[in-house]
């Protein structure tokens, strides 16, 4: 059940996109998302979809993997579409019972749906092709300038990478504890809402305890290796821009210019 969530998951394979510097992917994704909000007509979205398709092709990640991630937000997408469809005033298109659908409503609903879909697939391309560690490395380096304003960049990056590292561990732990309590006759699946919430206590208490225990163990292990924050700390694999990264930036720039010109015609 927990294994079906693919948002934020890494898909291991060899590709140009996988090898790219995480900063390019981060920046590119950000610019891509921003670009989606600039379009005034349909052609901008066509350009965006085309570009995304190209990147997916280059990433060697099967397309069905990305669609899988979409399933979890399908509900959100549906709500957005329905609300936009019925609640936007304008020229009437059809009307039944108390509901009216307007031309403007249809237009907004469709663009919203396209925008959200592209946005989510676009960002999942980044997470599917970048390991969490790589991603936080990239973020740390990109945010370095913020240090001037006393933002604890290294600490935030470290917390993030540890948190990401703990997700699979805690998921496995949840699975184990759940099974152990089911073996003791616990029932997580039936009964009223209150009963089900109460049934979670035997799962959550051991889970919290184990999370604290692991956090404590990790802190001790880090201290034993003389960890004392980011000052003077070097990387084993420092991020250095290669030729392909410069080409990557250039591609994103070209995309931006083309799509926004086309999209705002």
């Amino acid at each position, binding site marked *: 059940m927990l294994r079906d969530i693919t948002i934020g998951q890494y898909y291991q394979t060899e590709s140009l996109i996988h090898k790219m510097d995480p900063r390019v992917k981060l920046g590119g994704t950000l610019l891509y998302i921003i670009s989606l909000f600039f379009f005034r007509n349909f052609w901008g979205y066509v350009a965006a979809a085309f570009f995304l398709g190209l990147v997916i092709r280059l990433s060697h990640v099967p397309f069905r993997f990305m669609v899988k991630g979409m399933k979890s937000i399908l509900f959100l997408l549906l709500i957005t579409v329905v609300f936009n469809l019925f609640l936007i005033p304008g020229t009437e298109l059809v009307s039944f019972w108390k509901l009216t659908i307007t031309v403007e409503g249809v237009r907004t609903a469709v663009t919203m749906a396209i925008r959200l879909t592209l946005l989510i697939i676009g960002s999942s391309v980044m997470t599917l092709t970048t390991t969490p560690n790589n991603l936080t490395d990239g973020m740390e380096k990109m945010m370095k300038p913020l240090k001037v304003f006393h933002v604890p960049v290294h600490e935030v990056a470290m917390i993030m990478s540890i948190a990401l590292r703990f997700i699979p561990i805690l998921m496995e732990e949840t699975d184990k504890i759940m099974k152990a309590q*089911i*073996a003791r006759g616990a*029932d997580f699946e039936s009964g009223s809402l209150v009963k089900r919430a109460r049934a979670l206590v035997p799962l959550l*208490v051991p889970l919290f305890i184990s999370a604290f225990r692991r956090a404590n163990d990790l802190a001790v292990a880090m201290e034993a290796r003389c960890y004392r924050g980011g000052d003077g700390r070097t990387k084993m694999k420092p991020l250095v821009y290669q030729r392909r990264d410069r080409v990557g930036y250039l591609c994103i720039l070209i995309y931006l210019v083309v799509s926004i010109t086309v999209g705002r015609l």
Partner: protein
Amino acid sequence: MSIILDHISYVYGGDTPLEVRALDDICLQIPDGQFVGIIGHTGSGKSTLVQHMNGLLRATSGHIYFNGEDIYDKDFSMKKLRSKVGLVFQYPEYQLFEIDVLSDVCFGPKNLGFDRKEAELKAFEALRRVGLPMELYYQSPFELSGGQKRRVAIAGVLAMEPEVLILDEPTAGLDPKGRDEILHQIKQLQTETGMTILLVSHSMEDVAEYVDRIVVMNRGRILYDDVPKKVFSHYKELEAIGLAAPQVTYIMHELKNRGFDVDTSATTIEEAAESVKKCLQITAASS
């Protein structure tokens, strides 16, 4: 009255490149009252196997019969099965959650529908069986030592009064003394109640003394299924799959190779000592 596994296979990560065949065509019959050791190296499928026996995992193919009923039948109650087949997981102390030991042990019986009084009676009995000192019954389970916590967790399953008790590595992470105590108590439990017990372990030394039968697992298949003496006679093959026979077996074989007429099928230290003594007496008498 028994558990029968009929051609059980379990595959996980199906239709992805990471497909793993954790169990491969397992056939096994466990009669009532037997003390069975399931031995295998890490990743051999032993934990996966026992999780099938109380329905926590569902086999990809094959059937499991508990007391003659197919547990995959639509009208078969998994809840009832889990009350009859108790499973103690690895490191069970991590599943404790209640404010005191007694309430934690009551969790199982209460889930089975017993009222507070009956549940507490069963809990008392289970805690007595695992040998936990009485003064600890009303303490927080989190204040106990590792070995005591494990006893509480085992009691938590025992309190459900199962007919079959499965223990997955009950001695992992315990010191030798704690290990011997727990194994001894399990054996005692079996002789007193006639309960069927399955003990999962990766150490032959652990089980050799106590069990009636050993099932050796390797890569999701059953390699040997026999009485301990017969299984240990394959000690060379066992080594090849990362397991080892008890140290006694090695010593006895070595002695035999050096010309002493000892019984190589001895599995416990007592038996070995007896055999060596006899052999020495014969040599002394003949010279």
